[in-house]
Each structure stands twice: as structure tokens, then as C-alpha cells.
């Protein structure tokens, strides 16, 4: 409710600004028609007015951007609150259940498993947020060492398989043998886990994800191909922004809007890049990360 109210006032002020600019233009054109014989003075005036108009326009664009960013930030805080509180609520619920009620052996084992899953989820959210903090600060360069990319991919895939209980066929991974890159194994695992996890998360109940690595010239490219909801052309770049979530999907699938930002930052820090490809909504998508071969 508050949200739409704010939207309305923003729309009003933008319309107001546009209105004022048009008034200036009309007045000015009128003035030119009246005083066109004044030569270079007129030219100077035209330039000044154009500058003022440009200034107002830039100002408005900046404002709108800031507002949008602010909204995304709010959404992010909400999402993180939810992602942190839900597993805690669940763990507490089960602990209090165990504390106050007789629970048979089988149920008890079930409860322990659920609590462990929840603590994993909690931990992964915390790590995600902390990692973003570290990457965002733009601080130190990562400590680079020789890393086998194939092993990084395998570790990430296995992690996601365990976390989301995906079958071997559902999340298929193709080993490539040795693929040496220079990198920080921790960051690389985090980035590739994010890609694989996204693919699984957005696929819905019917998971068909393929992960494969290939060498092209001086770099390795890891591709994660899914048959999920796909992405429209305009969104392909935006999804890597911090806090950004594709409108509409955000209410169905939970997330913080940090995962792909981390992927892109890690790729950049390693001298590589990350991008997304999709034939369009409903036709699956491919996320790729490219890293230079170790020399």
C-alpha cells in the first residue's frame, strides 16, 4: 500500500518535471521568434537553456535510478530476513518439539536430518551475504593458486545434489579430465555452486540440468544448461546485478538476489567473465563462466 503511494508521488514529480521543461521550451521558442535578429547573443541563450534542460533530465534519471535501487534494497532486506529467520524458526520448532514431546526413534532421526538441512541453508545464506560484503568492498586480490577446475565443478555439483536431493540423471555432469586455472578454490566453488544451484532451483520439480566444461583457446568455459523458465532478452544482463531479481519470478522462487552478482564478481577477479544465454521465456537458459587457463 505504502509502496503504490510512493510510486504515485514519484510519477507525479516526474510528470511535473517534464511539464516544466516543456513550458521552458515553449517560452523559449516564443522568445526566439520574437528576437531572432539578435545574432550571437541568441545563440548563447540557446546553448544555456539546452544545458539547463540536460541538467534537469540527468538529475531526474539519477533520481529514478536511486529510487529503484532503494526499492531493490528493501526487497533484499526482506528476502534475507526471510532466508535467515525461516531455518531458525524451523530448527527451534523441532528442538522444542523434542524437548516437550515423546518422539519415537524414526521420527527423531527424521527431525535431526531436517534440522541439519536447515542449518546448512542458514549457513549458505550467511556465507552468501558475507561473500558479497567481501567482494563488494573490492578489497584485496584473491590469493591465486593452481586449481583443477574439473574438481571445483565436481565438488559444486555434488554439493547441490546433496542439498536439493537431485538424482544423477537430473543433474548431469560431464568430467573433462584436467583443467588447470589460476584461482581461489573457495571462491570458484562458491560461484559454480551458485550457478548449479540456481539452475536446479528455477527448474521446478522436473530437474534437467547439464554441466560441462570445455576449452576454447586460452580459456575454459563452464556451462550450466537447464530447461527451466528461461530469461527474456532484456533481463539477460540485469540478472547479474546485485539484489536484482526478475520481476514476477521473485515471488515464486525465494532468493536474495546475490548469487549471480557473486558469480560475476568472482569471474572478474579471476580475469574471466560470466554471462547468460536464453532463447527466451519458457525455453531454458544457459549460464556460463569463462576463466583463463593457468600458464
Amino acid at each position: 500500500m505504502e509502496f503504490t503511494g510512493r510510486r504515485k508521488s514519484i510519477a507525479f514529480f516526474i510528470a511535473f518535471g517534464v511539464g516544466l521543461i516543456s513550458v521552458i521550451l515553449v517560452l523559449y521558442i516564443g522568445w526566439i521568434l520574437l528576437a531572432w535578429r539578435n545574432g550571437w547573443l541568441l545563440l548563447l541563450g540557446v546553448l544555456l537553456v539546452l544545458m539547463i534542460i540536460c541538467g534537469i533530465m540527468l538529475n531526474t534519471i539519477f533520481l529514478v535510478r536511486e529510487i529503484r535501487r532503494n526499492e531493490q534494497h528493501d526487497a533484499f532486506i526482506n528476502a534475507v530476513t526471510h532466508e535467515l529467520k525461516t531455518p531458525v524458526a524451523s530448527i527451534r520448532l523441532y528442538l522444542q518439539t523434542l524437548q516437550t514431546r515423546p518422539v519415537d526413534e524414526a521420527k527423531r532421526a527424521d527431525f535431526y536430518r531436517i534440522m541439519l538441512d536447515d542449518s546448512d541453508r542458514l549457513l549458505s545464506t550467511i556465507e552468501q551475504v558475507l561473500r558479497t560484503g567481501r567482494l563488494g568492498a573490492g578489497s584485496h586480490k584473491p590469493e591465486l593458486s593452481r586449481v583443477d577446475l574439473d574438481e571445483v565443478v565436481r565438488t559444486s555439483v555434488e554439493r547441490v545434489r546433496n542439498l536439493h536431493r537431485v538424482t544423477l540423471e537430473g543433474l548431469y555432469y560431464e568430467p573433462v579430465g584436467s583443467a588447470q586455472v589460476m584461482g581461489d578454490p573457495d571462491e570458484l566453488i562458491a560461484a559454480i555452486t551458485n550457478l548449479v544451484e540456481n539452475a536446479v532451483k528455477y527448474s521446478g520439480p522436473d530437474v534437467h540440468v547439464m554441466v560441462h566444461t570445455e576449452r576454447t583457446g586460452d580459456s575454459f568455459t563452464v556451462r550450466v544448461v537447464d530447461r527451466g523458465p528461461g530469461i527474456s532478452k532484456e533481463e539477460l544482463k540485469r540478472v547479474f546485478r546485485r539484489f536484482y531479481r526478475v520481476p514476477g519470478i521473485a515471488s515464486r522462487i525465494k532468493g536474495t538476489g546475490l548469487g549471480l552478482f557473486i558469480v560475476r564478481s568472482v569471474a572478474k577477479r579471476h580475469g574471466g567473465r560470466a554471462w547468460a544465454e536464453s532463447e527466451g521465456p519458457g525455453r531454458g537458459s544457459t549460464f556460463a563462466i569463462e576463466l583463463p587457463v593457468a600458464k
Partner: protein
Amino acid sequence: MSRILVVEDEAHLAEGLRFNLEAEGYQVELVETGELALDLLRTGDAPFDLLILDVMLPGKDGFAVMSELRHRGQFIPTLMLTARGHADDVLNGFEAGADDYLPKPFELPILIARIRGLLRRREWLAASIPATPPAPEPRETFTFDGKSLHFDRLELHVGEEVFPLTLMEANVLRYLIERAGKPVSRKAMLEEVWGLHEDTDTRAIDNFIVRLRRYIESDPTKPRHLLTVRGVGYRFVSNPGAA
């Protein structure tokens, strides 16, 4: 045995709630989305005594589900359970029509106590209604201008024809008839008939009135019984000729 509908999309929490509520002796039904819950409550095949509603749901959120239910005239006792514990969120919840609101993480004994409280209140209410002397005997029929309203059967008889009324339509008519001749504000109707305290959406009432006029007016475009009082609301006149 009380039946509880739990709307929660987080599987772990939902299962934990189910285990505990069943241990308390309640019958529990789980659904993952607000849409499913609304469908389940609409058909009413299996009536529920209590609704536990999460806010952050895929699709329609808990607030939307809550206010839709209340606008539909379904007043099932509802406890909202959510990770959003800001004062604003709590107020939103109550404004949408929730009876109680508990932020996550919650204390299990407190949750159980609140559920018991809501169910107990429902039982007390049910018990107290026949106990109180029916002071102003609720009118079961009302006749005006050759038409008769049967509140008990939810029917309107016009000559030979019989129109079925919904419970809400009957309640609105009854409310206006009890105050026949006096103007009644939209806000009062929302509060007294729907039990809602909102400044917004009084237009829902206008649609209602349009529908009612179709039943009781011979010419709905020139109403004689259900009159609009500009800037206020509506007025019922049973015998326009005499006034």
C-alpha cells in the same frame, strides 16, 4: 475434533507444525499456496475451525489471501505466522482481518496456547449466542411493496418469482431495513456487516447495492426503495408513496 488448515510453503516448518498440532489432537491439512487455501475454503466440503497463514507465499501473499477471505464473508479464526515481525507488518495483518499474528521464530508452547485461545473463543461465542435472550428478535421475514424477504431461507419473493440471496446480500438488506428511513454510511456498513475496518474499497458496497436494486426495484435505474444519499451512503424506504 477441531480441524486446522495450515498454509505454509516451507516444507520443514509445515511438517513440524503438523506433527505438533496432531500431537495436540487436532486434525491438520497442509497446503502450500494461498490460492489452494482459498479454493479449499470456498468449496467448504470440509469446514475448518482455524486457519494458520504464512505471509511470504509463492503467488498471492498472506495479506492478500486474508483480505480476500474476509471480503468474501468468511470469518474463520485466523492466526498469521510470519518471518516479518515489523510493527507495520503486524498492523497490515490485523488490518487484512487476522485474529492473531505471531512472528517467526516463535515459541512452540505460545503458538499452541494461542491456537487454543482462538478455538476456545470460537466455542464460547457459539455457546453464548443461544444463551443470551434474543432481545430484538431478528426479523425472519419482511414484507414491503408486494415483495417479501425471507432472511431465514435467504430468499426474496416477488409475486410468484423467487430470487436466492447470498448471506452477505441478506445481511446488507437486513441492516438497511433495521434502519429504514435513516441514511446509513458506507463505512458503517463495511464495519457492521462485513466486520472490516478499512477506509478503502467502499466501492465494493456500491456494487452490492447495484445488485440488490436489480432484485428489489421494478426499475433499477430509478430506485424507489434503495436510495443513494449523496456523500454518505444509502437509505432504505419501505413505502415510498407514504413518505
